[in-house]
């Protein structure tokens, strides 16, 4: 079996503990307005325009985003990075897109990584059949779990899907006792108003267990903008500014009220 991966990030230090390798898997059931990995949404390989500059001249290279790898291929990549993971308490993170979009391959890859002794994390939006989540659970040591909004309507309008399944899966995970880090993307105009924040905070307080290790507040950032150009997609976030440092510190303070450890950024 092979999985479709559109990016591999070494020295990944914001997707779980220590120095990690993050595999970005193609395909996502959501279409978030602020998505900073738009090339991860489609489940198929696609062509991107890569500019290659030589002096004053520019060349455009058609680059395929999305290559097929076997679980063994991935483990070989990790083996090269092993020493950095050993020294830092790091490991491997599967992200996307939505890694559970390729759930069978994900389970096989996670299992192979565990067999080789790597710490495994899955960065998920939670929108997946519960059976698939249960299938990868035995090989996953940490879930990075996105919770974007508690209000179902707002969630639907901005991500294209209802949050019912996401919140239900979250309950399943919390009950399983697996380590979880909740990630909240802080998106101006979407979830940074007081009422949205209050709902998020109350929800997290109500779900609090020992295995909820941390809440990461991920400030919206504009690094995805160039990708929209590259992949010739419409960007719906032109007007939106990145939240400033002070605002993020305010939010950190606010969420500290949950009694859960809070981190700005991953």
């Amino acid at each position: 079996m092979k999985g479709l991966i559109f990016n591999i990030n070494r020295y990944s230090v914001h997707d779980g503990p220590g120095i990690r390798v993050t595999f970005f898997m193609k395909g996502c059931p959501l279409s978030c307005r602020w998505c900073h990995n738009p090339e991860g949404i489609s489940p198929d390989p696609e062509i991107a325009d890569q500019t290659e500059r030589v002096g004053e001249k520019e060349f455009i290279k058609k680059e395929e985003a999305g290559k097929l790898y076997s679980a063994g291929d991935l483990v070989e990549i990790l083996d090269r990075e092993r020493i950095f993971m050993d020294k830092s308490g790091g490991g491997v993170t599967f992200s996307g897109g939505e890694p559970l979009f390729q759930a069978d391959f994900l389970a096989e890859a996670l299992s192979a990584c565990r067999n080789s002794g790597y710490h495994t994390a899955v960065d998920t939006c939670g929108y997946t059949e519960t059976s698939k989540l249960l299938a990868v659970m035995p090989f996953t040591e940490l879930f990075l779990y996105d919770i974007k909004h508690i209000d179902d309507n707002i969630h639907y309008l901005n991500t294209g899907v209802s949050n019912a399944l996401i919140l239900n899966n979250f309950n399943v995970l919390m009950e399983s006792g697996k380590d979880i880090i909740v990630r909240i993307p802080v998106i101006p105009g979407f979830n940074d108003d007081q009422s949205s924040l209050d709902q998020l905070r109350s929800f997290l307080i109500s779900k609090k267990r020992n295995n909820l290790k941390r809440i990461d507040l991920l400030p919206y950032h504009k690094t995805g903008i160039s990708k929209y150009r590259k992949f010739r997609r419409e960007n719906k976030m032109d007007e939106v500014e990145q939240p400033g440092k002070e605002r993020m510190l305010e939010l950190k303070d606010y969420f500290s009220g949950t009694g859960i450890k809070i981190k700005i950024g991953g």
Partner: protein
Amino acid sequence: MIISERVKKLRKESLDAVETLSAERAQLITMFYKSDAARELSSPVKRARAFEFLLKNKALYIGEGELIVGERGPAPKQTPSYPEVSLHSLEDLDILNKREKVSFLVTEEVRNIYREQIIPYWKGRSNRDRIMDLMAPEWHKAYNAGIFTEFQEQRAPGHTVAGYKIFTKGFLDLKDEISKSIAHIDYLNDPLAYNKYEELKAMNIAADAIIMYAERYAVELDNLALKEDDPVRKNELTRMAEICRKVPAHAPGTVHEMLQHYWFIHVGVISELNPWDSFNPGRLDQHLYPLFKKERETGSLSMEELYDLLGCFWVKFNNHPAPPKMGVTASESSTYTDFCLINLGGVKPDGSDAVNEMSFILLDVIKEMRILQPGSMVQISNKNPDTFIHKAIDIIRTGFGQPSCFNTEAIIQEQLRQGKSITDSRNGGASGCVETGAFGTEACWLTGYFNLPKILELTLNNGFDKRTKVQVGLQTGYASDYKSFDELTEAYKAQINYFAAVKIKGNNIIMRTFASFLPVPFLSLIIEDCIKNARDYNDGGARYNNSYIQGVGLGSVTDILTSIRYNIYDRKTLTWDEMIKATDADFEGFEDIQRDLIYNTPKYGNDDDYADQHAVAVFEIFHDAVNGKPDSRGGVHRINMLPTTSHVYFGSVTGATADGRKARKPLSEGISPSQGADKQGPTSVLRSASKIDHLKTGGTLLNQKFAPQFFEDEDSYKCLTALIRSYFALDGHHIQFNVVDAYTLREAQKHPELYRDLIVRVAGYSDYFNDLGEDLQNEIIMRTEHRCEQ
């Protein structure tokens, strides 16, 4: 640490002082050489008497508020010249005065002194003249073509560091050792008995000279104390006078005494000659700690006093720019920095963790003083705590390129391989940029940079240099003659062997000129076992002697070979004819080819074995060409991989290359990937860089540029610590971090006036961004910035 008003003022004075050429030393040395006193003396005694004459007659300088005294010139940043080593012509002086970067003010008065006194006596008599006369035609051809540089043409051999001995002994103790050594001379059986006696006599004169110099300061300090109205300063001056009467004659007993003791020695070494990398206190935390602890226990030293002393001590280094260089030497080492590298951490002589309170205190001093000199590094052993590394990262993140990080275990293993004792190896460290040495016991000399990519260029042109239009190398054939990649590799190997031999033959002559004409009896007092061996530092008197040739452009040459193999021999997408046309045209009109060479050809620095195997192959060829070849002072030749700024000079003599690099552009520096070639992030760079066998070198240099975002929280400190520890577990020798974003650098280039204090890591040292040539500025901007994109 809170910087006192005193230190603030001295620091500012040092930063504001203008680098000026002083004629004082040149005048005194010339006066001595012309006098009757200099006649009929053996070389060592003549040099000792010259040293004595200099210290007896040079102006004293006591800055207002200073606690440590002694200057090489008449005042801070007044920099002497060394005409017996190399003579500046009037034209050289004009260039020094006018050049945009690293200039020295040359007054009309100094110019006149040069014209009337210095040049008439030394013209044709400096050691540089001697060397240039002695070198063979093939050496000159290679030197002019930019195959290698010559360290000793303008400066004396140095790269030397103080060890335990000098911090625990006074010069009266050393005089006792000299007497014992004289008593042991065996006139019956030893044919060198007379030479030994003359050398020891010279050392004895030099020891007396430094004590006399300190006494001159004591007298002057007493005079100032008498005139001083402020009772606090009066008291200070009196105490300083007492200290100058104690050290360096006797071993220091307090922190203040030790710093003054060292400083007199430092001034002595850099006044006697102009050794490369000035001189260096080495493992300063180890040396200071016992006295610091004792004084803290007895209550004789407050923390405020300690910081004041250390602040004053730091300023002293900054007062001493590297002596003015010219020509190729100025290009290969274009900086005011004189490469003192204070070592912190590492292990004790018994192998245990050496990090102590003084290690942390000195890191504070480095952080707060934030000046170019002295440079600083942390030796990181498996045994050192993470908190020590975190403290270092705290300073690294502020972006002035200090301290750099070194692998203690690698440094020890490199030295054990060279046959040093385990204790001497543990007492060693790195000096200059990254050079491994046994502190206090070794004369480890750098002899010149070696242009690996240029030699490949010659290999493709039958040994003919298109730039100078001279047959420089062996006639091994033209590019298209090489039917296979292996044939090309064999020819390249033959050329490297040839040029290494030319360089080594030159070295062996040049070393003898220093041993014969320019011995250093003062430096010989300090480095073991010169007294015991009754032999000069410049003549193999030290316990260990090693001579280095520094390979430059490993990343570039790897990418060039990789590209040739990939595009011409393996995939056959280009013919030699096409490649040569494109590079001969500097890619003008061949941008499509250049684009594939840059973007679609494997590169070193991405943990790609296809490319990295060529780094290993070139490294081994270079190593085998040099390593173990005898030098002419009882040691052997070895290799290093570091460039200072020579990768810019070497690039300027090298045409367009098969990796897509344009003609005259800088080569890669140290063992870092070519600028912009590493696309997979720092772990891949470290993996690539660790494929060569660092333990077979005397130092490698790896520069990593990080955006400030990588230093923002506790987790990122942990990851950086793990990154460093991983590289060192892979036997990496050294890594340094440049923390500044490309935007800031571009702004600084546009508005230099607003960024006068911007210090960046260059290659093994830090420098003011504004003092760098534009090429080097651009290169630093281009070096990959590792950003977190996800």
